[in-house]
């Protein structure tokens, strides 16, 4: 059993080791400082500033979560406490299906429908906003399903106790169920955030991929993951190494997210 549990853990270690080894020459040649202080990202002209892409990744993730979290929570609460059981079952099935839709499909929809729509409003259309909306749709099922599971794990006695005390349906949901399910909801959100950081194809198609720190939600951005895919096939030498460093930075971001949740104060149920 222990060995089985160790396999995924070992895989992660191997992946980190691989990315670290691929980044090592670039880190030695270019240095960590230059990756955040160079005049821009022009790898063929020896300028390797990763900061605009890091900002892009974080901005797209934050905006996507801001859109998906309220929707996902609302969906979970509705499924758990308000929808009649047959409707709830069907909806859950649809959500699970949505979670399995390949990201390229969302990206294609974004590129052919959403981007032209935004472009009619503000050019060029391919933007931080387009990326965040597409990403929000992608992570919405994850957030809704994990939140729903967390709500389902709240002991029935607690809910009945709240009802016995005369709390309304909404009062029970907001005052008792959601706080009790907080850790589960947070875990789901972190999973969604990690997926958001790593998401590549869907975002590559709608974000515009211009290397810049976005000044508004209508500005195009390039994420770290998109940068790797766009340039890896053609990169050699220091350029390739700098792309590996982007991968390492992505891994570090996800790790930081996970640690953040681990450190969050535990609150006893009930």
């Amino acid at each position: 059993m222990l060995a089985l549990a160790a396999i995924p853990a070992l895989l992660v270690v191997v992946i980190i080791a691989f990315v670290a080894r691929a980044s090592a020459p670039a880190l030695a040649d270019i240095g960590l400082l230059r990756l955040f202080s160079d005049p821009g990202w022009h790898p063929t002209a020896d300028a390797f500033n990763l900061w605009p892409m890091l900002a892009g990744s974080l901005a797209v993730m934050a905006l996507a979560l801001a859109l998906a979290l309220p929707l996902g929570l609302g969906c979970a609460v509705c499924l758990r406490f308000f929808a009649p059981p047959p409707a709830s079952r069907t909806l859950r099935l649809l959500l699970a299906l949505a979670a399995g839709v390949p990201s390229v499909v969302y990206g294609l929809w974004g590129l052919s429908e959403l981007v032209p729509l935004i472009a009619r409003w503000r050019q060029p259309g391919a933007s931080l906003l387009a990326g965040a909306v597409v990403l929000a749709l992608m992570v919405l099922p994850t957030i809704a399903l994990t939140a729903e599971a967390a709500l389902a794990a709240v002991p029935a006695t607690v809910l009945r106790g709240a009802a016995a005390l005369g709390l309304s349906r909404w009062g029970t949901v907001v005052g008792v169920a959601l706080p009790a399910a907080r850790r589960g909801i947070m875990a789901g959100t972190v999973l969604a955030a990690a997926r958001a950081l790593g998401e590549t194809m869907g975002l590559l198609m709608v974000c515009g991929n211009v290397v810049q720190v976005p000044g508004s939600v209508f500005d195009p951005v390039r994420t770290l993951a998109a940068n790797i895919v766009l340039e890896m096939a053609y990169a050699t030498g220091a350029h390739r190494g700098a792309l590996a460093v982007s991968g390492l930075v992505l891994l570090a971001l996800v790790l930081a997210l996970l640690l953040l949740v681990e450190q969050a104060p535990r609150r006893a149920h009930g």
Partner: protein
Amino acid sequence: MIARLLVAVLAVAALGAGESTRLTVTGSSTVAPLVTEIAKRFEARHPGVRIDVQTGGSSRGLADAESGVADIGMVSRALKPDEPVLAHTIARDGVCLIVHRSNPVVALSDQQVVAIYTGQVAGWKEVGGPDLPIVVVNKAEGRSTLEVFCGHFKLKNADIKAAVVIGDNEQGVKTVAGNPAAIGYVSIGTAESDAAVGVAIRLLPMGGIAPSVGNVRSGTFPLSRPLNLVTKGVPTGLAARFIAFATSDEVFDLVRDLNLVPIR
């Protein structure tokens, strides 16, 4: 099955008769994907033969072929008269500018294209078009279409002020088709076949020459270049057979799959 075995035995016998079974091909990273595919098919038909394809740029291809480090070099441009190697063109690469189908601009001069891509001209009105800002679509660093484009217009990628940066040709076509204000450049093969099936793009002529696969093949279209295999002198043995295969119509489907133009 028996026929196949016989072919294999004959091949091995032929190779045993003093011919090398390894071929090293080095050079341009634009030509390499095509040569890799051709090499796979060649190896499948000639069991026992190994073809090693390595990238490192056209100049490495030239140097390696000249010095004999590689049997064949790969060079993604026309050779200069003083370069002492023999070129065998295996495909042509053509790039054209595309705009949205609704855009009334029918042609742009080289100066206008440069001004648009460097951000000096920011509105379609300034080049005889509608009252819209110009949305410049550029390729990601390292793509060969970017190389052809920048080479022709004498631009550096760092000077281009892009609103959207794309990866592959299909993404470029979809981006321009979805935006009446966009201008982009993609491989001609992709643009031509997409426009033919009704995608909302229009291909712009260059210097009065219509953008078509035919004009890329004949070499008259300005934004095009040959993809060459180069050898030091007339090739012999395995190298000669590989080059004959790579220039035959048996590989044209591979050429088209990579959005390149076959030589015939």
